[in-house]
């Protein structure tokens, strides 16, 4: 599903966000990318959904080598993944339903399919009562659930979530994580980047810790050298 081999990312300002990262995430796996702020979690996720290009190394997502120089169809890759970000990235001038439907509309889905699927997914995230409400009237937790609903509506095999619980309270965090664990149980690959160590320890899933752009050992904090 996801394979990174000796990936490094250095920004033009000479800041190294990732240094020689190798990892493998199998289909259906739930994985945390763990680390404090500035450890390179977001950069790693941004590389996975092609918002950044690595400076070196090879990345394969859903069977496509996205670092191949001839790989251009980013939009086709993104249709196979659901992206959730900490700041939700919702359209503030639209309703809950319209925000979720948007992901299907850009895929040129017929309106009856859009309507049916949006209703289903809003029920799944517990927002069926709020479908006609404006985004501005929602709490942070509800906004995050709308963002998740939008990421799920195309039924993607991979979910990439960057700090999805970063600004949520404990109850909201539990609600959001329940959606992710349910998805995982249905076979979706879920990758969650978080700096919340308590959250990681609450779940029995694999964690890939990063520190200052390097992959480190969870217990000792020593750099992990992994052949990929």
């Amino acid at each position: 599903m996801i394979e990174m081999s000796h990936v490094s990312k250095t920004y033009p300002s000479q800041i190294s966000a990732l240094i020689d990262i190798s990892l493998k995430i199998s289909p259906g796996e739930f994985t945390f990318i763990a680390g404090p702020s500035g450890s390179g979690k977001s950069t790693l996720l941004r590389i996975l959904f092609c918002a950044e290009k690595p400076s070196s190394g090879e990345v394969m997502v859903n069977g496509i080598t996205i670092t191949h120089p001839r790989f251009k169809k980013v939009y086709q890759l993104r249709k196979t993944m659901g992206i959730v970000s900490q700041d939700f990235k919702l359209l503030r001038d639209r309703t809950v339903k319209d925000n979720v439907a948007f992901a299907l509309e850009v895929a040129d889905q017929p309106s009856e399919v859009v309507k049916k699927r949006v209703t289903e997914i809003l029920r799944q995230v517990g927002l069926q009562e709020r479908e006609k409400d404006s985004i501005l009237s929602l709490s942070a937790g509800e906004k995050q659930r709308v963002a998740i609903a939008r990421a799920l509506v195309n039924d993607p095999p991979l979910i990439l979530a960057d700090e999805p619980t970063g600004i949520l309270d404990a109850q909201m965090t539990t609600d959001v994580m329940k959606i992710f664990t349910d998805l995982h149980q249905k076979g979706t690959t879920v990758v969650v980047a978080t700096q919340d160590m308590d959250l990681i320890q609450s779940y029995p899933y694999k964690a890939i810790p990063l520190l200052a752009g390097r992959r480190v050992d969870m217990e000792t904090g020593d750099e992990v050298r992994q052949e990929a």
Partner: protein
Amino acid sequence: MISFLRYAMIRAFQNMRGNLFPNLTTIGIIAITLLIFSVFSLIAFNLASFLKIWENKIEVIVYLKKGIQISELESLLKNTQQIEGIEAVKYVSPSDAMTFMETKLGSQKNLLEGIQPAVLPPSFEIQLKKDYRNSAKIKEVVSRLKQFPQIEEIQYGQEWVETFSGIIHLMRLTQWILGGLLLAAMIFIISNTLQLTFSSRREEIEVMHMVGASPAFIQVPFHIEGLIQGFLGAGLAVLLLLLLFKVFLLYITPLMRGWLAGIPILFLPLETITWILLGGMVLGVFGSFIASMRFLKYS
């Protein structure tokens, strides 16, 4: 496909409504730039049609040497008629010339009293074939005529034809140089206005990128917006030109009317108007294309 086009059209109109002021400014600037180009087109078109009318009337007058014999005249006439490009040759005897002058002078024909027709040279009035009624081709015919020793002088308004052709050439050149500069300015303006639209819709574009909207899905509404801007700007330019044209006709001085001697002043033909409208639309799309290359690319 139809639902996509419907979506793209709706989005384009929503964008324009949402960014009304920048859009109106762009349309206005396109209209002004295309108006400048159209004014030059109109002047060049009228000069060209004026020249065409004049070229249709063009003829070569060949003055023969006085005292030419009838037998020589007949063979010269025959040889002249055989020159390529000559449609008809009319012999004008000295007495015909005198009659013509009397007619021209009208009430003042007494000025010619005492003057014998013999002082006037015999001449040929030569009508040229249509393809030969231009400066270069006339010169070809004239050089052939000059080979006949019986010919004294040839007149065909050479300088006038050349000067006028030169003016038209200069007008066309100015029109295209100016057109090129205005074209670059228009593309720059359209692409910059669309950048404002992109900024105002940055959030939506980001989400579109996030959910994997195809580049066409993101870009086509902006291209339609550019096309509409270009079309409206060009349409406005043509309307303004028509208005200026009507005002010009209304206020044209009697002196100028006399100088034009009945030559009609024409508005641009439908074909040229269509080209201006199409040009505006193409430029609009091109401007949006440039802007989208810079701002709508998938990162």
